[in-house]
């Protein structure tokens, strides 16, 4: 778990950024082998200072054209519950910890994150349980997320319109 990528998508989620850059979280991350923490903070007002120590690097940015590169180089992704963030991380085959924003409990985007957790594809916690989750989590227990099957849709459509 050398590199950890934290993403809040286009939203702001200061509580997550605060929790994950707290001394307690940093200590747990380092104890689990993390040497690089990359924070994508979106519209958030909290902007932690970057660090460039020999043993620990913290990078901070707001937005990028594409986060594919950051996802690819991460060994753990910590994300808000946004559907786009969750799906793209799982498609990259990366272990994902979804952190729920409890101020947005009735947000429909939570539906997908909850279901993915129920099916064992992602870990799930809130900001106050982040540190203990980082300490106790077992990433090897996560189930891989199989790709969808658009060919089934094509077969269905062929039948609908009468193509053989």
């Amino acid at each position, binding site marked *: 778990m050398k590199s950890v990528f934290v993403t809040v998508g286009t939203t702001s989620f200061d509580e997550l950024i605060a929790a994950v850059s707290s001394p307690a979280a940093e200590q747990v991350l380092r104890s689990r082998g993390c040497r690089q923490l990359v924070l994508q903070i979106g519209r958030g007002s909290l902007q932690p200072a970057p660090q460039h120590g020999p043993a620990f690097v913290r990078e901070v940015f707001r937005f990028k054209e594409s986060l594919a590169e950051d996802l690819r180089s991460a060994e753990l992704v910590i994300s808000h519950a946004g*559907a786009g963030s969750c799906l793209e991380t799982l498609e990259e085959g990366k272990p994902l910890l979804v952190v729920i924003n409890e101020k947005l409990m009735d947000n429909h985007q939570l539906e997908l994150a909850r279901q993915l957790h129920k099916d064992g594809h992602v870990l799930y916690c809130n900001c106050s349980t982040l540190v203990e989750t980082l300490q106790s989590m077992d990433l090897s227990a996560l189930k891989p997320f199989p790709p969808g099957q658009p060919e089934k849709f094509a077969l269905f459509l062929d039948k609908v319109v009468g*193509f053989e």
Partner: protein
Amino acid sequence: MQPVSPPPGSTGTFLLLLLLLPPLLLVPWALVARRRRGRRTPPLSLLVVAGSVHFIFAGGHTTEILRLLSCLSESYSPRCYILADSDKMSEAKIRSFEQKRAERFSNSQFTLDRIPRSREVRQSWTSSVLTTAYSILYSLPLTYKLKPDLVEESQILREQHHNQILCNGPGTCVPVCISALLLGLLGMKRAIIVYVESICRVETLSLSGKILYYFSDYFIVQWPALKEKYPKSVYLGRIV
């Protein structure tokens, strides 16, 4: 703090009902028209209604719908894409998808059109009714011009924006669908309407989904819980 989007005002609801009433009354007619539909022979023109997302991720609606199209055979041609005029991200994705497709199939054709979005993020319900009516009027000549055999739509995925909770809304697909339906009822062209609800919808439908559940010929959901709640829907597993 997160302000909650305002509940539909009673005037807004009334106007919305008024707007939806004519198509609602025409539904039995549409059902009869559906029975008369026979087999189709290739090629078959396909109208694709794409939406926009505020994701910086490549995820979201347009990616979802292009994934669905990726497995369709060359018989589905031309593909006519309709985007909201405020959608800045989808066009590049569609063009790159079509370019790859042209390398595979020599006879590959597509068109790309834009319509005003019926409801913008954070727009009030009352004014949404007016803009929806405007988009329907705008969509009518376009759907007439394109005369698709098949309309395929998917939910428009909205993101939280500027710290406010947004709800899903009928952006581009509801006006296009309703105008396609009207053309069918006028006897000009009866298109098959296929709606695909977004993978993000596990237990509840989007507002577009709730409306188009009644107007589509085939309504596809991607989670079993929705299939149970909406018996008319089709569940094929996860297809994106």
